């Protein structure tokens, strides 16, 4: 029996739950407004199926998604990720993004690259890129330029510094607007960070020691309350860890 979505916001849902977005009292003459179902939800005719377990979230006006914890990354179009160049074959690089399949990255998809002027990319380099093709039937494709041909910070990066993995949920918490973790972190010392939505994070600070401090702090953020985190950060800032 399909139930309305609105009553279930901020509740835990399980895969297989079925919902209808149209409320029964509306009837067919009232035009239903369009709804967006985000990750974790699937459309089936007029109904919505839940396909991930997690908490149902809602954003005005009509966006719903499932907030789930997972470690396996599934490429999605438009998401910016950190990839590792694993091979170059002809005109494309193969990039490991942590998905089920390596993504391809054309050597023309860099800022200022032409057929003659090839980008200086070696196997083993880190790239910050976004998906231009990502669906379940095809090989994902990355690009380091936007539609206007600007890099906007994408491309090869990562001289020095350290890359490590976090869970996808924590990465989203880091990227949330006005993220509390980032606000606590930036009080410590100058450092640089690249956060990919595939769970990879790259950190660089002035010294190796500081880089490792940030790394360990981020890894410990996974299972800490805000209070615990703030006391830990306080201790680090005072210099007695």
């Amino acid at each position, binding site marked *: 029996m399909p139930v309305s979505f609105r009553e279930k916001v901020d509740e835990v849902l399980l895969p297989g739950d079925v919902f209808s*977005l*149209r409320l029964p009292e509306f009837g067919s003459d009232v035009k*239903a*407004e*369009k*709804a*967006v*179902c*985000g*990750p974790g*939800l*699937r*459309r089936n005719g*007029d109904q*919505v199926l839940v396909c991930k377990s997690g908490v149902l*979230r809602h*954003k005005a006006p009509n*966006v719903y*998604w499932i907030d789930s914890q997972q470690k396996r990354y*599934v490429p*999605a*179009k*438009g*998401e*910016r990720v950190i990839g590792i160049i694993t091979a170059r074959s002809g005109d494309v690089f193969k990039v490991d993004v942590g998905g089920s399949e390596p993504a391809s990255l054309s050597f023309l998809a860099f800022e200022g690259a032409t057929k003659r002027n090839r980008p200086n990319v070696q196997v083993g380099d880190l790239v*910050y890129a976004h998906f231009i093709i*990502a669906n379940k039937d095809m090989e994902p494709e990355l690009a380091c330029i936007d539609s206007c041909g600007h890099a*906007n*910070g994408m491309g090869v990066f990562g001289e020095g510094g350290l890359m490590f993995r976090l869970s996808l949920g924590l990465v*989203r918490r880091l*990227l*949330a*607007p006005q*993220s509390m973790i*980032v606000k606590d*972190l*930036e009080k410590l*010392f*100058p*450092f*640089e*960070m*690249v*956060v*990919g*939505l595939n769970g990879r994070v790259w950190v*660089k*600070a*002035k010294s190796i020691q500081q880089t490792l401090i940030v790394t360990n702090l981020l890894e410990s953020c996974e299972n800490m309350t805000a209070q615990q985190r703030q006391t830990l950060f306080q201790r680090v800032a005072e210099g007695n860890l």
Partner: protein
Amino acid sequence: MAKDGAAKLSKNLLRMKFMQRGLDDEVKKQLEEEEKRVISDDHWYLDLPELKAKENYIIEEKSFVPCEDLVYGRMSFKGFNPEVEKLMLVMNSGSRNEEEEDVGKMESDITDEEMARRYESLVSSMKRTMSKKRERSTLEGGRTQNNHTTRAKKVFLKPQD
């Protein structure tokens, strides 16, 4: 006698362009109908009920980015990498209002007078680059001689015979 002769001609021959003039309306119609039937027999179609396109009220979105308004992934703090800090401002300006005010301030950095002065110098330098070599020399020469000599434009002199 002539009519009987025409009837014996084959249909394919009658369908030819130069034979059409002599045909009367009845035969013409008959030929056209036959042609139509041949075409419709060749035409295949699926014996299915018509598809009704339903309007879709649910849009699928696979990415978290638009749902949670996730920010740009490159960050730098306390001036570690100024380039990235600039990028952060640009890329995250859409979601916040504070930065938009900053942009407004930046636009009023240069006053209109300063702008006019800059354009003045730009126009003269552009004029120099756009003009031909000969004209440029006269331009510069004119400047040193206080713009007194304005050489007459060269015109074609008709030779006298």
